[in-house]
């Protein structure tokens, strides 16, 4: 493999603690190495430019059944926006729900190299893997959903942590999954009867368990196994006025639990797209921001990480395993609604949504997301996401960076709102002058998510030994710049290396890379009871046989297995 030396760039790297100093980054055999370890490198002149590790997205909906529902049922999302095939680039289409090819390329264009699919229905794991296989460049993993799974509900009703853990290990292996995802715990099972669980103590119909028990039990099982990532939750009551209390109640379920993982993370709970969970008021007429209450809690509890779920004010496509929420949304906006309940496991819904700057609630949502990041004391525990495509497409990350880094950019946006004064009144943002710097952006987009995922030994930094995922942006932080310069530069990386391969050269896609799929193989002691339960459920209630359930090797042509030993 070619050696590279990226010379004289302004480096922002929380792992090395470099805050914009000029430094050289050396690449050899797919890894970052000491600069004296290379002999005949190709030299990239990065003088006057910004250098960071490749970006890491901890939560996006980019592959799998509901994503493809979003693509196939929105031809209008692709109208006039298609990019023709050109050179090594295959054709690319779709705005809010891009094709897999465009997904890979557009992340690379932003300097991102690792993207986690946030919700994989286990029965549809093959589909998710087929899409990831056809997403070029990126390293990816997928989180199977557990929060409404009948095995989990039955084991945790009696607080059977060891059985839950054994089942998790089995399902991660069967689906080639990466982490334990929980979406509207209990609520999606309730939705199979048209019902919901609206707070952490709202019992799940028939199963006689509460969301609180599900969340606590899954945290404990996750730590029992010592998985790389923590339990990753989308709490009950998403998107409803007054829901911040449910969010705080969910946070509190992690109290007193310490991480037990050799992968270096400090949290036991990752709460995703917190913007959607930080609303006060009791109706859409009086909804307001509770970002301060939320961040007061997060700032004082270091066993939690969160991500933003920033609203980007675009027309987009919402999609989530939170089935009842999507039904609620289609009742509000009357747009087309897809729903897919999955036997014994989960459900999902998909509805297009237009976040209009002329609608007060949309503008309040926009402000709340930014408040979360700007009120954070530690930028390495809150990550930049749009819950793609729910709050907006991921291609807007550079715009979110602009808003975070520039009060002027935020003021421009406030001025563009139809109900500016009401929005200012309902939120804190206008009174927050903080502007993040690129070091903090690197914490939110690189080092932080990599650590939370338990992948700090691979991604998120530029220390020797890490994967050679390096982005060079045509952005000089020491020269005066307009807010829009930030968005422009970070939308369009000048160079990008993925595991040592140059995938973007002079702003153009130069290689389709060597995409890998990460999954976690957790070894547990033999558990005959769980295997008996698995056999019985397949025999009696599933519509596929047990022998046809496991995702086999050829769906992952380039797997990267993370081994975990929980037999002790």
């Amino acid at each position, binding site marked *: 493999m070619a050696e590279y030396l990226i010379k004289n760039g302004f480096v922002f790297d929380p792992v090395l603690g470099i805050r914009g100093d000029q430094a050289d980054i050396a690449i050899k055999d797919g890894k970052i190495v000491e600069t004296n370890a290379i002999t005949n490198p190709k030299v990239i002149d990065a003088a006057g430019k910004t250098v960071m590790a490749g970006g890491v997205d901890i939560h996006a909906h980019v592959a799998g059944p509901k994503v493809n529902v979003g693509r196939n049922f929105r031809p209008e999302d692709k109208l006039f926006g298609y990019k023709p095939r050109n050179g090594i680039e295959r054709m690319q289409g779709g705005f809010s729900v891009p094709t897999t090819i465009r997904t890979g390329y557009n992340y690379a264009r932003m300097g991102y190299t690792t993207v986690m699919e946030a919700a994989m229905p286990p029965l549809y794991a093959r589909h998710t893997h087929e899409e990831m296989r056809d997403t070029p460049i990126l390293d990816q993993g997928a989180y199977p959903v557990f929060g409404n799974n009948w095995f989990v509900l039955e084991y945790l009703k009696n607080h059977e942590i060891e059985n839950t853990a054994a089942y998790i290990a089995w399902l991660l292996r069967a689906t080639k999954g990466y982490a334990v995802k929980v979406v509207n715990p209990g609520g999606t099972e309730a939705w*199979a009867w048209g019902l919901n669980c609206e707070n952490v103590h709202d019992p799940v119909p028939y199963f006689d368990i509460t969301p609180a028990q599900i969340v606590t039990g899954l945290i404990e099982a996750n730590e029992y196994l010592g998985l790389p990532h923590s339990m990753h939750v989308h709490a009950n009551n998403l998107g409803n006025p007054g829901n911040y209390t449910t969010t705080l109640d969910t946070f509190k379920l992690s109290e007193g639990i310490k991480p037990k993982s050799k992968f270096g993370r400090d949290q036991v709970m990752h709460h995703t797209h917190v913007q959607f969970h930080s609303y006060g008021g009791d109706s859409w007429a009086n909804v307001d921001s509770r970002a301060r209450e939320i961040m007061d809690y997060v700032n004082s509890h270091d066993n939690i990480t969160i991500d933003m779920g920033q609203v980007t004010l675009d027309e987009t496509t919402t999609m989530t395993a939170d089935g009842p929420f999507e039904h609620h949304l289609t009742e509000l906006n009357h747009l087309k609604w897809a729903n897919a309940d999955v*036997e*014994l496991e989960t459900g999902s819904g998909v509805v297009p949504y237009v976040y209009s700057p002329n609608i007060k609630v949309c503008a309040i949502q926009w402000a709340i997301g930014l408040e979360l990041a700007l009120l954070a004391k530690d930028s390495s525990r809150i990550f930049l996401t749009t819950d793609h495509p729910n709050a907006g497409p991921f291609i807007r990350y550079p715009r979110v960076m602009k808003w975070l880094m520039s009060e002027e950019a935020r003021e421009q946006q406030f001025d563009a709102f139809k109900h500016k004064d009401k929005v200012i009144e309902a939120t804190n943002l206008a009174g927050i002058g903080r502007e993040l710097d690129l070091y903090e952006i690197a914490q939110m987009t690189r080092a932080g998510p990599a650590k939370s995922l338990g992948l700090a030994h691979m991604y998120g930094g530029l220390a020797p030994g890490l994967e050679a995922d390096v982005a060079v942006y045509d952005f000089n932080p020491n020269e005066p710049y307009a807010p829009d310069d930030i968005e422009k530069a970070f939308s369009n990386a000048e160079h990008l290396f993925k595991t040592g391969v140059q995938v973007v050269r002079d702003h153009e896609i130069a290689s389709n890379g060597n995409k890998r799929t990460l999954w976690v193989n957790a070894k547990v002691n033999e558990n005959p009871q769980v295997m008996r339960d698995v056999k019985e459920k397949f025999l009696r209630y599933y519509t596929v046989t047990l022998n*046809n359930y496991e995702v086999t090797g050829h769906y992952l042509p380039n797997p990267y297995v993370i081994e975990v030993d929980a037999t002790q």
Partner: protein
Amino acid sequence: MTRTVTDVICPFCGTLCDDLEVVVSDDEKDLLEVYNACAIGAEKFLHSQAKDRITRPRMRQEDGSWKEISYDEAIEYTARMLTDAKKPLMYGWSSTNCEAQAVGSEIGEIVGAIMDNTATVCHGTSLIAVQDIGIPSCTLGEVKNRADRILFWGCNPAHAHPRHMSRYSIFPRGFFTGKGHTGRKVIVVDPRPTDTASLADVHLQVEQGRDYELLDALRVAFKGEKLPDFVAGIPKEKIYEAAETLKSGRFAIIFFGMGVTQSLGKNHNIDEAIAVTRDLNEYTKAAIMPMRGHYNVTGSGQVWGWLFGFPYAVDLSRGFARYNPGETTANDLLRRDEVDAVFVLGSDPGAHFPFSSVKKIYDRPSVAIDPHETPTTEVCKVHVPVAFVGVEVGGCAYRMDNVPIETRKVVEPPEGMMTDEEFLGRVLARVKEIKGV
């Protein structure tokens, strides 16, 4: 000596049963017996064993006779045909695996083809409806475990999807449906007294071509509004009663088939049926599902979805993807003389398209890739026989509820035969050479 292969997936219909047992000879060359399959599925397996099977590509001669050619010659003909054409149609893609569909997609991308699948004469109209109104649906296991109201509209699973009723819809005992069929109410809407209708608690014998009106009437009835005395030949009392039956269930499911997707109104019938399902979710839980035909027509829609963003009728001719049924659909293209070469794989348009369209295939350079001799191979210039997917080669297929299942290889194909994926892979390589990609 023989060996039994279990958990075999049936490559016949969209029900995609995965519990078949197949007895094969010890050398894995002969398939001897098939258990658990319906009659059609078993026949599909046994047919692969026909001794007079075509095992080598053939080219039509001027006198109408066939001449055996090598796979290399077939690959060359196919690659040349596709690269010479200005706008080739690549049709079919339903009776093959997703792996082959993905390779075919890349060929289509390079040559600027129109990619269309059998949905175009089947459930394509359902896909249009989903694009207009969405679709609340579920997996078949949800039906088995929860559904107590089963509505079959314009479909006849007793003949077309023979094990559907026993595995998923009417008879199985699931988690919340321990009473099996006695706990379920079955409604059939069909102008004909079908075998499925004979199993129903209620048969609404709708007037031919008036499904849209009857569906609208159900929605009016849900809201308690006044109906005319008769709609679609059904007295209003029966409509109010059916509406109440559906609303009073815990979980209602509507299955629909070509009786509504290809009769007057087409996508509109499905749109209104989905609207009925949406409405029912105001009162209880309800879902709706198309009875997809070919075992992997659903998969081709998925593969094209993630690669191009559209489930069928994808026009790649200008280097980017466009979609508009009525224009980019196979029959419209043939009817209007919009395409100048035809490639068919995994389908039999010779049997299912109107004669006028078949004539257009006959008039053009054409290749058919199919394990069988079919009406389509009869009108094409080149026939390339291939291994049977799901019998002689595995690969991914999507059930009618979009659940992906990996089909199994149970016996070896006749010696020297290529699979769809291998043949397409070679064509792709040749096309790239010709185009200098």
